[in-house]
């Protein structure tokens, strides 16, 4: 506590150091509660929402009693860009609505278009193309996992590819490979989550804070994702003994078995299927070209693009849109909104300034060492707790750090953004609770009566994660040197 007080005293201006120390403890407590979410048996939105409410109330009261003339929370009207003032409760502007709208729009859009069978159609088509050869099947499923994680989200990708893996390997009578396949797919979801700006929440949060556009993000992420996917697949081949079929008889038998899958079964309507394909392409093109949209349309932001396409897709189910509203992950959205409020309160209490000061020590190391340290720290932290608060806190701190943003106050090309992005995503591969998709992978593994403990997962997955993190460090060094 004394350390907090001493540090806070050095950074704070109007905020008493004991207040900063108090909220730092509250933040740590919240991170612990999120890490033990399963033990608490409460949803994330409720946990973080409770902390947000607590922080708002206590900081208001503390502000009232410490300095009434300058309350810690800046109550009052908000000034709009056109000079007008508007009265909003303090917790409304505290939320980053661009992030919330991207997540809401994208999840609604995916929820609707996935009903066209487009993703299951592709999955079955590739299964047949593999001819039932285990090594080809692993490569195809690996590629599918990465693409689905990038286009959908890593949880849905794991559910789709994991389910198909269970069915197809049972059909091929190769359940001995199931554990290896599911683990590899779980690990690849977090690599696929790096592909685009909207592929994972840390990407959205850091991307928005850094001002990285969809296309610049994609162009920078693609080489790493391709290399990391190939390396992971090769590592899986040797770790799990996945070999190709050799004799013609084996090949024919396997091909006959997978030929029995009918991809058209998962397509309820050809019209809806092709419309969804067009919508999906339009969605990706608009996101990619969002910053180049004419007539000031770019000002509406990526969140609007996501909501616009979700609205278009919902016309397919115009009488049942409430079904999709119910299917939205309100827990996740409530979690984000509450998290932004907590971070806002922490910012006002100078907690972020303290963490930023600690981070400053790391960032002033020689560039390569600083980048490696930040990436490894982010990975280590996200392996045991939620990577979203981590990304949100780090993004907020880095956005005001001169080493990162430079004298102009904005530098989307800074390698430190990528250290957080890579670390927050890849850290999820170290433990089974590191990311939501590895939790799903474990669920499918246990559903199939395969034995894998927490430690067992770490023993196998850590080797993959270390290789991926080393690749990421090398990639950040290389790109920062080249650019």
């Amino acid at each position: 506590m004394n350390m907090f007080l001493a540090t806070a005293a050095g950074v704070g201006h109007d905020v008493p150091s004991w207040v900063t120390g108090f909220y730092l403890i509250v933040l740590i407590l919240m991170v612990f509660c999120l890490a033990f979410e399963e033990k608490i048996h409460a949803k994330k939105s409720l946990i973080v929402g409770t902390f947000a409410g607590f922080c708002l109330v206590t900081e208001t009261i503390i502000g009232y009693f410490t300095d009434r003339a300058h309350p810690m929370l800046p109550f009052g009207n908000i000034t709009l860009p056109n000079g007008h003032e508007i009265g909003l409760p303090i917790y409304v502007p505290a939320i980053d609505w661009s992030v919330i709208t991207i997540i809401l729009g994208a999840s609604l859009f995916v929820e609707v278009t996935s009903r066209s069978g487009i993703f299951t159609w592709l999955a079955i088509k590739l299964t047949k193309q593999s001819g039932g050869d285990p090594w080809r099947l692993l490569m195809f499923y690996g590629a599918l996992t990465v693409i689905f994680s990038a286009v959908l989200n890593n949880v849905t990708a794991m559910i789709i590819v994991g389910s198909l893996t269970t069915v197809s390997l049972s059909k091929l009578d190769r359940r001995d490979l199931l554990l290896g396949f599911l683990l590899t797919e779980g690990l690849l979801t977090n690599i696929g989550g790096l592909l685009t700006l909207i592929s994972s929440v840390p990407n959205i949060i850091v991307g928005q804070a850094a001002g990285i556009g969809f296309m610049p993000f994609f162009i920078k992420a693609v080489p790493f994702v391709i290399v990391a996917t190939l390396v992971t697949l090769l590592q899986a081949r040797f770790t799990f003994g996945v070999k190709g079929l050799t004799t013609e008889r084996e090949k024919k038998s396997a091909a006959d078995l997978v030929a029995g899958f009918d991809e058209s079964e998962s397509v309820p309507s050809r019209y809806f299927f092709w419309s969804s394909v067009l919508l999906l392409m339009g969605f990706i093109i608009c996101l990619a070209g969002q910053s180049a949209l004419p007539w000031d349309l770019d000002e509406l932001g990526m969140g609007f693009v996501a909501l616009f396409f979700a609205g278009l897709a919902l016309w397919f189910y115009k009488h049942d849109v409430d079904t999709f509203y119910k299917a939205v992950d309100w827990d996740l959205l409530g979690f984000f909104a509450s998290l932004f409020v907590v971070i806002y309160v922490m910012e006002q209490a100078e907690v972020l300034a303290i963490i930023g000061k600690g981070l400053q020590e790391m960032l002033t190391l020689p560039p390569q060492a600083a980048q490696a340290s930040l990436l490894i720290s982010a990975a280590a932290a996200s392996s045991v707790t939620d990577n979203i608060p981590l990304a949100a806190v780090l993004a907020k701190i880095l956005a005001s750090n001169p080493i990162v943003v430079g004298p102009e106050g904005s530098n989307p090309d800074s390698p430190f953004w990528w250290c957080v992005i890579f670390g927050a995503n890849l850290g999820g591969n170290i433990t089974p609770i590191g990311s939501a998709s590895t939790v799903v992978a474990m669920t499918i593994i246990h559903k199939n009566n395969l034995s894998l403990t927490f430690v067992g997962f770490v023993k196998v997955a850590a080797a993959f994660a270390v290789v991926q993190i080393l690749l990421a460090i090398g990639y950040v060094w290389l790109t920062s040197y080249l650019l």
Partner: protein
Amino acid sequence: MSEPTNHPAPSRSDAAIDEFESIFKRAERTLYHYSDISIQKVAVVTDGDQAMARELGDNVKQFLPHIGEQADWQYVTGDQYHNVNDLLKIMAECNPDLIVTFRCLDESSLVPQHTLGVYVDVMTQTLSTPILLLPGTAPQPHPLGTHPCKGVMVVTDNLAGDDQLVNHAVACTASKSTIWLCHIEDDVLFRRYLEAIGRIPEINTEQAEELIAEQLVAIPAQYAQSCVEGLKTAGAERNIEQVVEFGHRVNRYQQLVAQYPVDLLVTNTKDNDQLAMHGVAYALSVELTNVAQLLL
């Protein structure tokens, strides 16, 4: 715009895993694979003399000309065996690919009814060799007819994946013949399960009835369609008709045999759960005595 259905949306719950597994299982088809059934040796088993056995053999050769032309025919007469063990020993020595015989061998003094007789009963269970059961009984045989077999009805309670049944039906027919692939789901059993489902509040009974019934008939229907395609690819095209429905099995099969020009019934007799003959197969083999049956 129409509102497409049938495809569950992904959710973040564990139930989504099960939903997608179901989608992929539904897309899984059991495909038919044609293989030529080679019958090189036929044993005609009678309880009469050599002349009677040969006459019977000639009738069968007319009935199944493809088999008749290429096979080596052996005749087992009544004086060669006196009990079931004797007959089983002869069959073991002879090792035929097909046994041709009557119901109720050597039981003329018993006036048998609604039974296969002890010899056939034991042979169906102890031998893996298919048995062609001729119409009528040994004491009261029915004429086989003089025309080659043109209509075969495959009778089963689980058609999907039973390539063996279909391949034997194909082996017994010529190219322009008709094969009826029949799969009757037991409606009494289905109602019983629905009654149980009706007592579970978590399951929508109406929806369950509709969806389960749909899947139960979809699987054999898809397999029957696969048979059409598989036979076409193999160059063994037949006129395939499918009868996939719910009903009382024995009654419905009797109606179907009466409804269509069926020359031969093909059915499975082996039951993994019991030593006795498969329930439906036994009922049909003792009830439908006026049509030839191939018991596998």
